[in-house]
């Protein structure tokens, strides 16, 4: 009797597992992997154009290297939301559309500036498959054209290209490390400004006469045969709506001031204090966190920030020989500190006056100065920030002066 019951129970358990399991089983090779989703303005009201970049796994793989298939498929159509579009795409795409591999969400500038943008953007939080760590990119032109023109020369597939170029750009500090999660996070906190990676394929052929730091994507003149796409600078979002663009220098300042953003391999130039014809090349290293001092007093406040920086001087065109000359080093240090703090303070002022908000993550640091949440909410960081007194100081320490510290005495060489 006991044995029979045991058998019956095990059969029931087995059936339970067999009948209930497998329901979301999906074979890897029966799916179409969307690597990038693009969102554009549509002609019709309350709809948007969606662009799918579907990568072809077979392209470039060893097994089927003799395939003639193209590396990717690109389709654009009008949709109501991010979910139903998966079904609509199957009109032309043979396999089931999946966002499992989605790493890049691209929005055109025009749509990003639209008031309805945030409503559509929040679809990304609804779908189970969309990863929150997907890169968030804003393009100058329509995304459909951006993806069509984007033809990397050396990377076999677009997914490799995106992965690599965005990683490099973030390391260099040319673009901010922004993903969907951070975008939603900042938007929901409603105190800071969010950033997006800025990119374009539309080159600007006229010479802007700016130093490379002050450029935006599309403004850098590059000759030769290469991909037309450029990622440089960032798009600024306030309350889920794009309000401006930051060039490379402003992006780097933002990253310097915001301790939640990171850059690791930053090379830049400063005007040479000893010979104004030249600029000195320097590597910026930030090892410690900023010292942020806040004083919140009834309705307004004061923020004092010190940025600890280690700077390695990599070029010495004026042949000053910094490694051997303590006086000159001191002077250089002061000049760089002044130069940097002036630039940063200017930018901070610009955020206060022009954007009326800051992308530096300071609202998070301010919370500890309030006793209760309602007190903080009443303070309304976004509204109060423009009236605050902000003072940023840079504290420079020199690292090495290139692999060889010394430069020869020019007079003696030319003699």
């Amino acid at each position, binding site marked *: 009797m006991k044995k029979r019951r045991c058998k019956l129970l095990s059969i029931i358990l087995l059936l339970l597992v067999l009948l209930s399991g497998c329901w979301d089983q999906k074979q890897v*090779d029966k799916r179409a*992997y969307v690597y990038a989703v693009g969102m554009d303005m549509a002609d019709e009201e309350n709809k948007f154009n969606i662009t799918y970049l579907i990568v072809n796994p077979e392209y470039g*793989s060893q097994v089927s290297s003799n395939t003639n298939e193209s590396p990717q498929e690109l389709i654009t159509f009008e949709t109501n939301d991010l979910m139903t579009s998966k079904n609509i795409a199957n009109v032309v795409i043979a396999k089931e559309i999946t966002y499992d591999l989605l790493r890049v969400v691209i929005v055109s500038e025009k749509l990003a500036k639209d008031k309805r943008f945030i409503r559509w953007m929040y679809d990304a939080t609804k779908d189970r498959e969309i990863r929150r760590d997907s890169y968030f990119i804003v393009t100058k032109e329509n995304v459909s054209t951006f993806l069509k023109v984007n033809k990397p020369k050396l990377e076999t597939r677009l997914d490799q290209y995106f992965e690599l170029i965005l990683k490099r750009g973030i390391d260099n500090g040319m673009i901010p490390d922004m993903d969907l999660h951070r975008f939603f996070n900042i938007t929901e906190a409603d105190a800071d400004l969010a950033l997006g990676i800025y990119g374009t394929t539309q080159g600007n052929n006229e010479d802007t006469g700016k130093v490379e730091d002050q450029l935006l994507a599309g403004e850098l003149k590059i000759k030769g045969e290469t991909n037309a796409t450029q990622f440089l600078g960032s798009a600024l979002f306030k309350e889920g709506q794009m309000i401006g663009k930051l060039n490379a220098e402003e992006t780097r300042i933002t990253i310097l001031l915001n301790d939640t953003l990171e850059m690791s391999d930053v090379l830049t130039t400063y005007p040479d204090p000893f010979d104004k014809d030249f600029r000195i090349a320097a590597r910026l290293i930030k090892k410690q966190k900023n010292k942020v001092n806040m004083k919140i007093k009834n309705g307004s406040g004061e923020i004092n920030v010190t940025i600890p920086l280690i700077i390695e001087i990599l070029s010495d065109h004026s042949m000053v020989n910094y490694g051997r000359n303590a006086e000159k080093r001191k002077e250089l240090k002061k000049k760089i500190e002044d130069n940097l703090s002036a630039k940063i303070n200017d930018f901070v002022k610009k955020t206060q006056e022009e954007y009326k908000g800051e992308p530096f993550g300071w609202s998070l640091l301010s919370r500890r100065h309030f006793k209760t949440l309602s007190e903080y909410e009443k303070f309304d960081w976004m509204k109060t920030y423009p009236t605050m007194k902000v003072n940023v100081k840079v504290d420079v320490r020199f690292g090495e002066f290139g692999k060889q510290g010394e430069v020869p005495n020019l007079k003696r060489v030319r003699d």
Partner: protein
Amino acid sequence: MLKNLVSFISDKFKIKNDYPEQLSTDDIKLKEQNIDTSLKKNIETFERIYFIPDNTDVKIRHLFIPGINKKAAIIYISSIMDTKIIEETVIRPLQNNQHTTIEITNIISAESVSTAEKIKDALKEINKGSCALFIDGEDQVYLIGAANFQGRSIEKPENEVSLLGPKEAFNEKAMTNISLIRKKIKNENLIIEATTISKRSKDELYIVYVKDLVNEELLKNIKDRLNTIDMDIIQNLSILEQIIEERPKSIFPTILNTERPDRAAYFLEDGFIVLIMENSPSALILPATFWSFFHSADDRYQRFLYANFTRVIRGSALFITIFISAIYVSVTNYHAEMVPSDLLLAISATREKVPFPTFIEVLMMESAFELIREAGLRVPNPIGPTIGIVGALILGQAAVQANIVSPIVVIVVALSGLSSFAIGDISMNFAIRIIRFGMIIAGGVLGIYGMAAIFTIGLFYVVSIKSFGVPYLAPMTPKYISSNDTIFRKLTKNERFRPGYLKPKDVTKKAGDS
């Protein structure tokens, strides 16, 4: 009509008895009798029992002993004894005897002589290779031990290969095996107890233990278990193992079978009990924990760092064997988002032209691997290499080229197969391989969730197993005083305790401390 049919069928199925059953009560009665004083009658009895002269290797030789002027006869089985000894120590001294009042035992110069009064007892000794000497007019028989069973000599271990350790292995002679252990433990406390465990073939079992270490209750428990055995024949230890283990249907082995005397000696010194039997090229060590199956002999002999490195490799191999195929199945079916994009695309690309679902594909290849393994084991030596080539080539490359399986599956299955060999113990190896299939099914049905569930249930089970009262995962869980030789081992000089879960009489290993 129907009746006819029924009777026809029952006629057809009636068992025809060509060989009518015979009772052996007469024989049994005969064997119960005492030895008779008449030599002639005794010889007749033994001729009848041994079926002489049909039984070719049982020999009877008639003698005349001068001096005491008596007729005598010896009976022996020539194939299992050393006839030279008999000739030199029995036949020649008897025939050359000139003393008139000497006792028989003093004439015979053999090393062991005993007497028996019952036919039954004499038969038992003759069957074991003794020579029986009957003297006319005496109602007892002299039994001279000269057994010499044929067998192989000591050879290298084949299953438990060690790089640095001793290269001797047990062979089929129990006395050799005991000698090999005694060689390692030269101590008067090493006890070799013999008991007979089967009713008909009278198989002898030697219980080996160190008296001043072993826990008496554990020993009693094992002896009790051995005493309850009710079997006609137990040919060797592998069969005995299946009879005395606690859970014969369990997937995990609970008795360690080793062919290395050094390992047996090591366990004896820790307070374990070793069983040795004639005809078994191995020894049983009990109780056994999971760790004793996981460890190998070389772990002891290699230096601390190297041994632990090997343990890490073996541990990861264990998990690779169990999980890798299952992870592949569940990731490709349920959790595609878990994989790095490049890898996912690579997997997807290789699967594009494969007709079967991953689950079937993996099961197919795993079974094929098991097939090669089993066939390779049974195949006669000269054909061996062919099987290897056919298996590797056909099932690997050709299957991929024919788009039957994807190359990644070949890698996964090869990896899991290769890793399974890292677990040296044959029983544990089987357990792991079977678990692997369970995992693949769980992964195919419910993904990683299913695997986690099965693994958890498995853990519950492993923790619940006991081997002769010792928890299977001791001393890791539950915790006991011990040298903590589990996943890693300590420095040899820091191994200060015997395993506490055995409750040995002396738990510290160092003479100075006790």
